[in-house]
């Protein structure tokens, strides 16, 4: 593939590349580094792209694999977060209203961060970026059935996390 053709095909997907890089990393600088290195790697391996119709999934797979390889190569240096306390309380009833009102953005971000990476990425790509199951599967190098179950677990975990968080909020002044 000619470089110009590669650029023409990739340009519409810079946004999704950037946002996935932001989701996978912890700082804007790291996200920028990851996205740029991902683009370079995709460019160098563009001959391996068999079907240009599937370029979005292929680009995202390149980016995610690069990120996972980097993680394997370096020991974590950030302090890992733990739970403040356990609660076995049942969900409160107004979660849906709070979701509709958009007042849970901090909780959503924290909930996403607490999911396993493969679940949060699947949920992000499907729910936010609007990828099909097949594209998510391609991006993550997994069968479509695995994507379905990851999505289901991710959504259930998010609903539970948000419900418990809002219940806890109900007990605070």
């Amino acid at each position, binding site marked *: 593939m000619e470089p110009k053709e590669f650029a023409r095909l990739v340009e519409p997907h810079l946004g999704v590349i950037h946002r996935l890089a932001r989701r996978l990393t912890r700082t804007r600088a790291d996200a920028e580094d990851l996205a*740029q290195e991902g683009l370079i790697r995709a460019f160098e391996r563009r001959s391996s792209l068999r079907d240009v119709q599937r370029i979005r999934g292929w680009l995202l797979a390149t980016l995610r694999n690069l990120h996972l390889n980097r993680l394997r190569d370096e020991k974590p240096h*950030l302090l890992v977060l733990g739970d403040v306390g356990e609660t076995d309380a049942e969900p409160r009833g107004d979660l849906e209203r709070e979701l509709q009102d958009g007042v849970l953005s901090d909780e959503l971000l924290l909930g996403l961060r607490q999911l396993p990476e493969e679940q949060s990425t699947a949920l992000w790509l499907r729910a936010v970026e609007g990828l099909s199951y097949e594209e998510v599967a391609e991006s993550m190098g997994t069968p479509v059935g695995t994507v379905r179950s990851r999505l289901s677990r991710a959504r259930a975990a998010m609903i539970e996390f948000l419900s418990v968080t809002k219940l806890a909020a109900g007990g605070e002044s």
Partner: protein
Amino acid sequence: MSCPSDEIIGEVVDGAADSVAMAHVERCASCRSRASRLRELDLALQALPLAGEAPPSSLAAMLRGLVAGDDVRSRALGRGLESATKAAAARAPHRRRHGWVRTATGLGAVAAVAALLVIAPVTGSPSLALADDAISNHLLALGTGDGSGCQVESEDRWALSAWLSDALGHEIEVPELAGATLVGARRCSLLGEETAAVVYRSGESAFSVYLPPKGSVAAAACERSTGCVERAGQTVCVIADPAGSPWLMVGEMPRLDLCSVAASG
């Protein structure tokens, strides 16, 4: 058909279920409610600021550079090497150990009241997600390693400012708080983004001050709420800084005491 599994309900929401499942959800109030909740979750995720974030111009410039045959790889690798060097420096800081000095400073009630007048809650408490994240981080840090909660220990605010700036890759100025003594600093994560944390002591209490970078998710969360919240025995206060991003303070201290210390800065 009996009520389908969560996975099938998810497929209905995604428009990927078969017609039998779709028809069931149409008829069944309970399943409609389950699907509705998932739809609302998706919509809330789509409304996150990050969901609408445009890529930086540098990414398009990189693409143009690739087409033009520029040596973008060496530039990117050079930047990566610089980051790695900084990260290595951050992981192996020079540690100067010192013991906890357990002297009570005794904050005056008059000062506390005066401080509250300055930084009393304005628009509501910090969100519980932000507060819980900060508390988790604070408690975990104090319970790790030597118990100081620091990666580097120093009472010199300029030394800590330099270390944090180097470790996190942006300018950080450690606040000077007359009502507290500096212990050290660490890099940590707040709402998923890397943030500087500075540890102080006041009397027998240690508290953390988080300095989220401007434009970060944590900074935005702080900007949405000024004030204090008490959770799990800890007090969390957002402190507005007219000259920059707000701070977040966390400690096992009464709200008044924490506010007094903040006001001494």
